[in-house]
């Protein structure tokens, strides 16, 4: 699977990767890990290991003091990373390493960390460090004028979120501001593994598909090969986070988690190839 990841990517964003997945008749696998957990070095090692094991896009989490869209697993990972001194600058090291490993890095960040540097500076630094774009869980397009200008200026992708509660006019407004992919929140709630992703995700993808041609990637709750296959049957990408973070919870020897991480990525990568449209 590693050779797929090595394929050349046209441009800085995720468009090339998503187009290639589509040509292969499958959904993309997007794997999330936070920078700095369990340490900065281990997190970067784990992210490149995910690329080698078959994720198509890496979602790079930036630990934040007030992660209100995250469930317990990612909250604890972020808090641990912050206690150990992770800095926003470490994100740019991670994106450069992921790009070198052959996958586009999409950075998932709460908005204040971008505001602090200004969207223009953050965008410039992200582009310089090989970043593909940003996923912004607490920024809606209505508030995003500066980010839209900065991401246009630096050729970066923008993933805003749609949710099961979004009415059609919001779906239109949000998707028209996205570039790369739309982040489709499968359920009302926060990140974390769920026993079932539920019918709401399929319905939301269908409603969103009706108003946009931008690829749709589904996140929140996916943790198994079977769930990945199910979501892959209707979405352009499957986003997995908390389940991957859990493999790194061995505090004493973080590398011990890497085989489990690679194995889970392998399972999920098989899953996105089993989803029949």
């Amino acid at each position: 699977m590693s050779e797929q990841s090595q394929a050349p990517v046209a441009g800085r964003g995720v468009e090339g990767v998503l187009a290639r997945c589509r040509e292969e008749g499958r959904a993309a696998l997007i794997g999330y890990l936070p920078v700095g957990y369990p340490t900065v070095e281990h997190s970067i090692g784990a992210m490149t290991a995910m690329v080698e094991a078959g994720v198509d896009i890496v979602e790079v989490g930036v630990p934040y003091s007030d992660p209100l869209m995250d469930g317990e697993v990612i909250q604890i990972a972020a808090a641990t990373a912050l206690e150990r001194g992770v800095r926003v600058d470490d994100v740019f090291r991670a994106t450069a390493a992921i790009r070198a490993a052959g996958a586009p890095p999409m950075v998932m960040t709460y908005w204040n960390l971008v505001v602090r540097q200004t969207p223009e500076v953050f965008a410039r630094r992200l582009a310089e460090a090989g970043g593909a774009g940003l996923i912004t869980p607490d920024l809606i397009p209505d508030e995003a004028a500066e980010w839209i200008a900065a991401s246009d200026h630096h050729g970066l992708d923008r993933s805003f979120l749609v949710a099961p509660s979004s009415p059609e006019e919001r779906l239109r407004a949000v998707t028209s501001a996205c570039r790369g992919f739309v982040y489709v929140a499968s359920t009302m709630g926060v990140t974390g593994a769920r026993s079932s992703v539920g019918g709401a995700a399929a319905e939301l993808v269908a409603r969103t598909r009706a108003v946009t041609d931008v690829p749709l990637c589904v996140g929140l709750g996916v943790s198994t090969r079977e769930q990945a296959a199910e979501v892959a049957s209707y979405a352009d990408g499957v986003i997995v986070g908390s389940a991957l973070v859990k493999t790194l919870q061995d505090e004493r020897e973080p590398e011990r988690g890497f085989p489990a991480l690679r194995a889970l990525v392998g399972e999920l990568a098989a899953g996105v190839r089993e989803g029949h449209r």
Partner: protein
Amino acid sequence: MSERTSPGPDAAEIPGRFGEFGGRFVPEALIPALEELDEARQKAMVDPEFVAELDELHRTYTGRPSIITEVPRFAAHAGGARIVLKREDLNHTGSHKINNVLGQALLTKRMGKRRVIAETGAGQHGVATATAAALMGLECTVYMGRVDTERQALNVARMRMLGAEVIPVSHGSATLKDAINEALRDWVTNVGHTHYVLGTVTGPHPFPEMVRDFHKIIGEEAHDQVLALTGRLPDAVIACVGGGSNAMGIFHRFVGEESVRLIGVEAGGEGIESGRHAARFASASPGVLHGARSYLMQDEDGQTVETHSISAGLDYPSVGPEHSFLRDTGRAEYRHATDEQAMEAFRLLCRTEGIIPAIESSHALAGAIEVGRELGPEALLLVSLSGRGDKDMHTAAEYFGLIDGQGAPTEAATGEAHSASEAAHAPEAGVQE
């Protein structure tokens, strides 16, 4: 609305802006609920039936109008200025918080929702929300930082007596900001049947405007009461500012009265130089937290930093966006009082007037002492006494050495030490600019 400015075309398109502050920095999943709430409250505020229902509740349940009390013995320590207190401490549940909570609980019913959630720091807003939920037959869950549940065990018991579920939050700093995070997580999960009764003038639009509007009755009543008592408007209106709801409530009526200075008093904690404080305007810069752009205590990366105040209700890293606007436009001014200054003002009001104030409100009293000394005996000051100090007795008793570590009364503290300390310490009370 006339006090607003819209600095650019982007801001002009977005409701709920106070200049460059405010906005809606929340997950998309919440936007429909915020739209629904905005529509419901706009309709309600001009619906005679809603207005009459809330007025009646305030008259027969809250105890409005709250009285004003002139406090000459206290004022003798404040340069001899005339000082009038607006007595929100006499409201049912013991603070101004009930004004907002009853309004939002009525809106919850109008929106057809059956459950309310709330965050609470000291417990005042949680108790008020639990009270309104009991009154109106709503399910109620209150999120409270674990540290605060330990500091305020009695308020946890009050909320549970009233039928609310209280969930201690252990994440992060385990205080008010973390309780808000957890309440927002609950809301995004249960928004279909749940309303989030946010307790202050922050958060995403329409909360800052709506909560202010439910509290503006404080200033409207006080305006008329002070005029009736003294025949003129006050020279300054003074209130403590945590999130800033009691301050916006008492300020709002006076924003257009240019002769009236509006003075907010933040928590200076152990002093600005110590770094252990919650005086956002003394050291912070604009940022985004909990849905709004406002002044925010943050580190170089934009991570929220921990705050400190002896008063749980002022221990919050951000501040309502309208305060940031009033501050940057120069319409309001903000000072801070340290823990020590607030506690001296607390003791002074107890001893001179027989009124035990909340420690939050004691920051406003410390501000009044300083402003009174600056302006002298001709000045007339209106001070928001936003809450009563019953909840703070344990903290105060420990602070003044009235109880030992086991909570038992101490010998030394009950006798002469205190009448002596009044004279000894009073001149030190006040605030720093």
